[in-house]
């Protein structure tokens, strides 16, 4: 599929948004994607999570290739 990105949510993020996977329109870069996600799911404002594009962790803002797989990865504390 073109111009879409596939999102996989983990842990608390999946729980908060009520979905483990979703497909959304392509966003140009990771900062724009975060903005889109926060508008779509305001509950995410209170959860910290890291972001991976095609299974690589993102630090700072990065371009998102078309058709990319994004993972929303919250930390876990339990032991």
């Amino acid at each position, binding site marked *: 599929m073109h111009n879409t990105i596939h999102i996989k949510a*983990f842990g*608390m993020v999946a729980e908060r948004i009520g979905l483990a996977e979703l497909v959304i329109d392509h966003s140009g870069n990771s900062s724009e994607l975060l903005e889109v996600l926060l508008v779509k799911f305001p509950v995410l404002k209170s959860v*910290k999570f890291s972001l991976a594009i095609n299974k690589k*962790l993102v*630090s700072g803002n990065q371009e998102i290739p078309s058709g990319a797989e994004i993972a929303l*990865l*919250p930390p876990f*504390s*339990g032991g």
Partner: protein
Amino acid sequence: MSRFERQIILPGFGIEGQQKLKNSKVLLVGAGGLGCPVLIYLAAAGVGKIGVMDGDEVSISNLNRQVLYGEKDLGKPKVEAVYSYFKGKYSDIQIEAIPEFISVGNALEIIAEYDLVIDGSDNFPTRYLVNDACVLLGKPLVFGAIYQHEGQVSVFNLGENGFNYRDLYPQMPAAKEIPNCSETGVLGVLPGIIGNLMALEVIKVLTDFGMPLKNRVLFFNSRSSQTYEVEIAANPNSGSSIPNSFQAFEQMDYELACEGIKQLTWDEAMGKMGMDIAFVDVREPGELPPLECTGLIKIPLSTLANRLSQLEDTDEVLFFCQSGIRSQKAAEQLQNEFPEKRIYSIKGGINALKKN
């Protein structure tokens, strides 16, 4: 035939691998759901010396997943139960039982004695504390954590350009954001699986066997049995958020850094008695033991939102609950409403009081 025969004949492991295990010293922080399987397999594999740090005692709710302990251990310090379990199993094993929680005061001295650290703790302040201490001392850290049906495993700070927990999670989360298993529940086999993955990583790092999860984090979901692996990249802020000296580390308050709420011990709390401070029990009615003292206010957490005004007139408020988690939430809730107030939560709650 030695008891390690079956791993010694394994191609790529051999006598050399066994010798390396025998000469290794590892420190486990937290002898809980993750720590138990880690201990069982590292002890069986023949790791030379295993230090175990945990200040907790065995309680009945531990038994579904903390598989080293049984009914006869209830109330015993966990590290004591660990010690006698393995002494009864392997005559030559070296176990150093340390009946303390790790802190900025003891971490550097203890970790310095070991080659590798294993984080089996259950809270964010400890996880960041252990990470930072390992970075400062140059020790590899095998990390595992769980949330409900999911787990994550990684190896931090290993060799050159080995990234650490702060590269993966540069922002310290507060406990209320991500509840732990005492709040969300856990099927015992999940920490069993994640703990076994951790034990495997420990053995790989100690013996240069295979490819450890260096700069990678592995997620496992027990409901779907799916795994997901992510490559970790350096975070430019990771270095500057780690204390830059032993002295700076010892001055850190990891709980405050994570929670934004100051935690007090019972001793510190008692020092504030008699002053103009509201002392609030946020446990639900019926939780034991009841605590009765003059001036004690009882506001169960479930009703706090409607009763915040009851605490309006006091500048200082001190919350406690059974284990220190709900009081933390209560403190944060009140702080959001009244940013000017000085608000505290008692670390470890009533459970910590029972121990003293």
